[in-house]
């Protein structure tokens, strides 16, 4: 179900300042331990600051998920742009990213200095093993019933084999598989009639 993302401000209130946008997103960037950023974003953008309605947020999320890049930073860019144009988008994305980067600088320096220490190596082995579990769980959760649908497995398995096992470049894999996958999901109206060009926006 398509939702408007409102290029124009919906509420006619004065838009928040750049500093305010940065701070709001930096609060998410500093507190969102353990992932699940989209939920944090929704809390702040919709419930606390009321910058977007719930539907507008879902609209932004749809775009953020369709376009390449991280869903969370994409949503931040869209919300920031809507509030304050280019500078708002930059403030939102940087606010979200920078706190974690600061922490990673510390973690990274500690890692570079101590990763050969046997104690630290043992702890890191545990951490890495756990991260694999986390990644697998997210994959299974997002994949859900796709793993049981032949139509989806037709793409899941080749993608996994090409990129994961045979190291076919991601660009080539997407170039080969994406058009087929998108065509198989083409709009109903095109399934009976002859194919029409894809760049045919409705008014």
């Amino acid at each position: 179900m398509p939702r408007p993302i409102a290029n124009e401000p919906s509420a006619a209130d004065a838009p928040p300042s750049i500093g305010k946008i940065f701070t709001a997103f930096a609060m998410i960037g500093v507190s969102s331990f353990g992932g699940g950023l989209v939920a944090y974003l929704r809390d702040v953008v919709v419930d606390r600051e009321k910058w977007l309605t719930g539907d507008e947020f879902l609209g932004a999320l749809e775009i953020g998920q369709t376009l390449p890049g991280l869903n969370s930073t994409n949503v931040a860019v869209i919300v920031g742009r809507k509030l304050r144009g280019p500078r708002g988008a930059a403030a939102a994305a940087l606010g979200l990213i920078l706190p974690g980067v600061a922490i990673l600088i510390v973690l990274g320096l500690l890692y570079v200095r101590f990763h050969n220490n046997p104690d630290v190596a043992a702890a890191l082995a545990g951490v890495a093993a756990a991260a694999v579990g986390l990644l697998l769980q997210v994959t299974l959760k997002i994949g859900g019933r796709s793993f049981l649908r032949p139509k989806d497995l037709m793409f899941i398995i080749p993608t996994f084999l090409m990129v994961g096992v045979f190291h076919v470049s991601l660009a080539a894999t997407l170039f080969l598989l994406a058009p087929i996958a998108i065509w198989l999901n083409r709009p109903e109206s095109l399934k009976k009639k002859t194919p029409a060009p894809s760049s045919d926006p409705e008014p």
Partner: protein
Amino acid sequence: MSDTLKELVELLNVFAMLSLMAVGGGTAVLPEMEHEAVAVHHWVTSTQFASIYSLGQLAPGPNMSMVGIIGYHAAGAAGFFLVLFAFYFPACMLTYVVSHIWDSYRDNPWRDAVQRGLAPITIGLMLAGVYAVGKTASFNLDRPLWFNGVTLGFGLAIVLLLFWKRINPAILILACGAIGWFVLR
């Protein structure tokens, strides 16, 4: 061209490409990133890649900022910031531009086709990411069998725990690090 400069250009190329190919989120490019950083450019070893990826899960914010640490290994502080820029900026820029014209396309039935078509490909890529990190972090023939038993056990335990209950994954990762400190040596 000096070696560092050449390394920086390579980093910029690889991570900007990854940025624009991250369909369905950053995790989708994890397998390709691992291949490029370990086998093609030798910026990090596969064990280092697995550790760096998992460190990234301990920091708040977007869970791919750890790419900076790969850049640091390859080209120092300049590499750190360049990789972050290369990985975030192109996709953000694309989103900025496209979201601007999105409203005029939002009723276009092809948008739905793109989203549904790419979904299983994203899942396949995520699965390849599990394999890319797991082949060193969970099951690694250079290590004794009991060690692999523990690391596989950690992974499975986390999958089950997270399906059973909503627990903050960062806590689980730290817990496995703490157990690892005593057990995995």
